[in-house]
């Protein structure tokens, strides 16, 4: 190493060390400017904590039926009341968080895992392959999200895993389209052309030069998609096509609650409020993230 480069490296070292701190400071500044998004992000983290710590947050077994306590209004012992089988609604809402989060996050991860590579290839190689992929994607998009999910669950059978896969596959075309569009615009950028001129291969161009530059937009799309997936899981379970009873899913809880609206309305309040607050917080946090990561694209 020549003295010159050492000097440059030395000069860069503190800058590198302060980079994460700078990013944190920027995030904090953003949070102060957008208190609603900060609250949203905090509530999302709270839901994550509840999902992970469900056994500690809810000490009562969510499946334990107590025939003495059927449809009891909220009390101190059962803050959210009990359901038609005398099970603790609070416990069930807490454990339901785990199912909703799991379905929401994993389905979108699946959509990203399938959609991003396909979109990348379509946008990068263009031509006939792109045409074929895009026509398939158009056809795929023509099936309304829920109807596609219902169809897939019919083929695969109702369960949480199958509902997650169905929701993920339903969300995939959005990621294919988005990735393709982003790749098309980035491929024409000077730095990509420069890297190509320097002899970088297709794989290197895609993974090292294009992908890192579109990640933030994909992340924003993911935060928009997760709440939609959470609602989709609740809807599938509500229709009896997702999580099967007695497992505590917010959707199945609402399905049961519908039969007891006049005698036990609290059975419908809490699971619904849980879905609403989770999706609202995701949307609030997503808005903030979009401004933070992608100020130009939106």
């Amino acid at each position: 190493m020549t003295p010159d480069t050492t000097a440059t490296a030395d000069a860069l070292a503190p800058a590198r060390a302060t980079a994460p701190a700078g990013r944190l400071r920027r995030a904090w500044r953003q949070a102060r400017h957008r208190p609603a998004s900060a609250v949203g992000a905090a509530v999302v983290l709270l839901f994550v904590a509840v999902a992970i710590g469900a056994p500690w947050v809810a000490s009562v077994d969510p499946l334990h039926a107590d025939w003495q306590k059927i449809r009891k209004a909220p009390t101190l012992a059962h803050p959210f009341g009990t359901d038609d089988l005398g099970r603790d609604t609070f416990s069930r809402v807490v454990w339901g968080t785990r199912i909703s989060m799991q379905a929401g996050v994993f389905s979108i991860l699946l959509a990203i895992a399938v959609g991003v590579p396909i979109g990348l290839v379509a946008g990068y190689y263009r031509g006939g392959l792109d045409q074929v992929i895009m026509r398939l994607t158009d056809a795929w998009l023509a099936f309304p999200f829920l109807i596609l999910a219902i169809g897939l669950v019919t083929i695969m059978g109702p369960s949480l895993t199958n509902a997650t896969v169905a929701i993920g596959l339903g969300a995939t075309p959005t990621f294919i389209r988005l990735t393709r569009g982003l790749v098309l615009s980035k491929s024409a950028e000077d730095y990509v052309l420069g890297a190509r001129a320097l002899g970088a291969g297709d794989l290197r161009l895609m993974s090292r030069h294009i992908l890192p530059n579109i990640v933030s937009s994909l992340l924003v799309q993911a935060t928009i998609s997760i709440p939609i997936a959470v609602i989709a899981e609740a809807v599938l379970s509500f229709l009896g096509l997702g999580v099967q009873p007695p497992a505590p899913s917010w959707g199945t809880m609402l399905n049961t609650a519908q039969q007891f609206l006049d005698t036990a309305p609290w059975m419908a309040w809490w699971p619904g409020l849980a879905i609403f607050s989770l999706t609202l917080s995701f949307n609030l946090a997503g808005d903030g993230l979009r401004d933070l990561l992608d100020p130009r694209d939106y």
Partner: protein
Amino acid sequence: MFDFLVQRAAISVVTLSVISMIVFTGVRMIPGDPARVMAGTEADAAGLEEIREKYGLKDPIPFQYLRWVGLALRGDLGESIRTRESVVKVVATKLPITIELAFLSLLIAVGIAIPAGVLAAVRRNTVWDILTSGASLCGVSVPNFWLGIMLILFFSVRLGWLPASGFVPLWENPLDNLRRMLMPSFVLGTALAAVLMRQTRNSMIEVMSADYIRTAYSKGLAGRVVVFRHAIRNSLIPVVTILGLQMGALMSGAVVTEQIFVVPGFGRLIVESVFTRDYPLVQGVVLITASAYVLINLLVDVSYSLLDPRIRVKGSAGDA
């Protein structure tokens, strides 16, 4: 303009062919022997064989597909396993109910979203803007089936103002029909309104900063005239596109809403056909839904090009 239409129509035909293949393959992937499903549990081997012969289930798959498409193009989607009624006939009785529901919710959505979106854009960064954005965010986040349940709890169970479920055909008793359709349409309309409101606001803000709006102001036109005569029309172009894309969401919403309010429409038919494993019906309704979506978006594209001449100019130049 003609070139643009031909090009868009050709793409739609390709998309529709792919859709038909997906639906056909999808239904054949459902576990179980279709002959056994059609024959019921008591059929013997000879009975099953007869059904396979009759419905051509022994023919090669591509041949079966082409025959199915041929019949579908002539308006024959087979018959329901359960009721033996023609799929097209079943759909024809259910579809008008869902179209009425969709139309009413569209009215509610547009009635709320466009004035609110325009107000939020014109009075940007005021309390109106914040209220509208908040309402829009809540509308996107609230699960519509829960909203439906809450409305039933409040307006039917508590106040007893509106019937919780049931359906009366429009032509039998229009007033009762509207009373029963009010809550379902509102539930379906709010989600759409939330999306449209945001889009209207954004596109109105963009239009309001355009040069010709500045010119309109500088020549002394009143603010009201500028907004109503100059800005709204142009700001609605992207809103129309979003409306087309939202048709799929509206259809998904109808499935759930009809389930909650026991409206015997197309959405409920989809769920029923899935639960009763009525495959020809599932195949038919899914095909019709997806085709409707493609055709609606084709119409949106055409109307878009009528509203904005630049699009068809590009189209005829061959670069759209």
